[in-house]
């Protein structure tokens, strides 16, 4: 790796100030994506502003009809959380599908959602549950947050501090993992709030995570049975030799059925 400095921030304000002062900085959360990216030369910041020592960015709390998860909370903590298990167990099940046990011990929810890798799992839950991203300066609705592959509405120096997930009546996630990397080739998260259905799809969208509105409308009108046999041929999906768009469309269809069958 190139040489770089590390600043361990103790407050959010201190982190942002250090980031702005340096001019060539990146924020570091769990490091499970950023450190490998730096080792392979895909990222080469002059300063890493480490967020891991800032108090208050880590932890899980149920507040009324909402589950608040600090951005620095690790996947292993989401899996082990009693609050997650009672409020939105699908989030715990999703976290258990991320990478492997060693990576889950370091990787964070906020790091994953801030990076917005089109093949990562949690953006599907964020979109389907209509979560709110709480940053050091504002609140961003899920609908406004994801802006493209590895792109979000976060400003360059903005820090994701917590995510607030509305608690649904039911939710489930189904994933087709890449056999080598473990990332999602396709992942479908379904959530029901009363009669309102929301479906988020990760892994396959040409522009990253998206809502499967055809399925949402069908579910709204006809219930779970209506989600059978949807025409997903019009979706704009990634297309590569290993996983052609037609395969991905079929996978989204069967993953939708798998997720609904878990409810």
């Amino acid at each position, binding site marked *: 790796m190139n040489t770089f400095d*590390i600043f*361990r921030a103790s407050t959010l304000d201190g982190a942002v100030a250090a980031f702005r002062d340096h001019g060539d900085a990146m924020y570091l959360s769990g490091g499970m994506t950023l450190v490998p990216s730096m080792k392979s030369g895909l990222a080469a910041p002059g300063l890493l502003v480490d967020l891991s020592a800032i108090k208050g960015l880590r932890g899980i709390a149920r507040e009324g009809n909402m589950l608040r998860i600090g951005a620095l909370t690790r996947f292993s903590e989401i899996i082990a959380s009693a609050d997650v298990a009672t409020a939105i167990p699908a989030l715990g099940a999703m976290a258990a599908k991320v990478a492997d046990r*060693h990576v889950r011990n370091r990787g964070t929810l906020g790091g994953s959602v801030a990076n917005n890798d089109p093949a990562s799992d949690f953006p599907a839950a964020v979109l389907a549950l209509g979560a709110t991203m709480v940053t050091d300066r504002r609140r961003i609705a899920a609908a406004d947050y994801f802006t493209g592959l590895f792109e979000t509405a976060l400003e360059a120096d903005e820090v994701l501090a917590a995510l607030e997930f509305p608690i649904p009546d039911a939710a489930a996630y189904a994933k087709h993992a890449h056999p080598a990397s473990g990332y999602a080739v396709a992942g479908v998260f379904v959530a029901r709030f009363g009669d309102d259905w929301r479906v988020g799809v990760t892994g396959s969208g040409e522009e990253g995570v998206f809502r499967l509105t055809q399925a949402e409308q069908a579910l709204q009108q006809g219930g779970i049975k209506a989600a059978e046999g949807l025409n997903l041929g019009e979706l704009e999906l990634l297309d590569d030799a290993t996983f052609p768009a037609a395969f991905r469309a079929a996978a989204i269809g069967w993953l939708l059925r798998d997720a609904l069958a878990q409810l």
Partner: protein
Amino acid sequence: MTTLTLSVNGSTRRVTTEDRTLLVDLLRGPLGLTGTHVGCDTSQCGACVVRLNGETVKSCSVLAATLDDGAMVETIEGVASDGALHPMQQAFSECHALQCGFCTPGFVITAIDMAERHPEGLSAAIVRAELKGNLCRCTGYQNIVAAVLQGAAAMGVPVPEREVSQ
């Protein structure tokens, strides 16, 4: 440069290092603990797994300068006590769970952690699922799974009788 005070296998170690130093390089270089291996260096193979504050991590993906003072690191060198192999090491030996042995330190650390986190019991299916982050290119895993179960049983973890190896 950053100066760190770490607890490594129970001993307090103070070391000054470049900010870009990975935990695995700190262990293998200045701290002289070469039992932790660098296999892929791309966060996939698990040869570099150590326990950090009681949790397994891939030490090739952890920047040493981000560790808190007093952070606890456990490596393969700290597993045996008084010259006697840990029951998990003994099981790896008895079950022939290694050939070249390069990945073994990461597997043993992972296996001990797995056994300690499943006091209610382990099965071959759980072991296989939890070994997802450790790659072995020699053995084909059959003997590794058998060793983890035998080692866990020796550590007092309930294991279905039929699943403990030959």
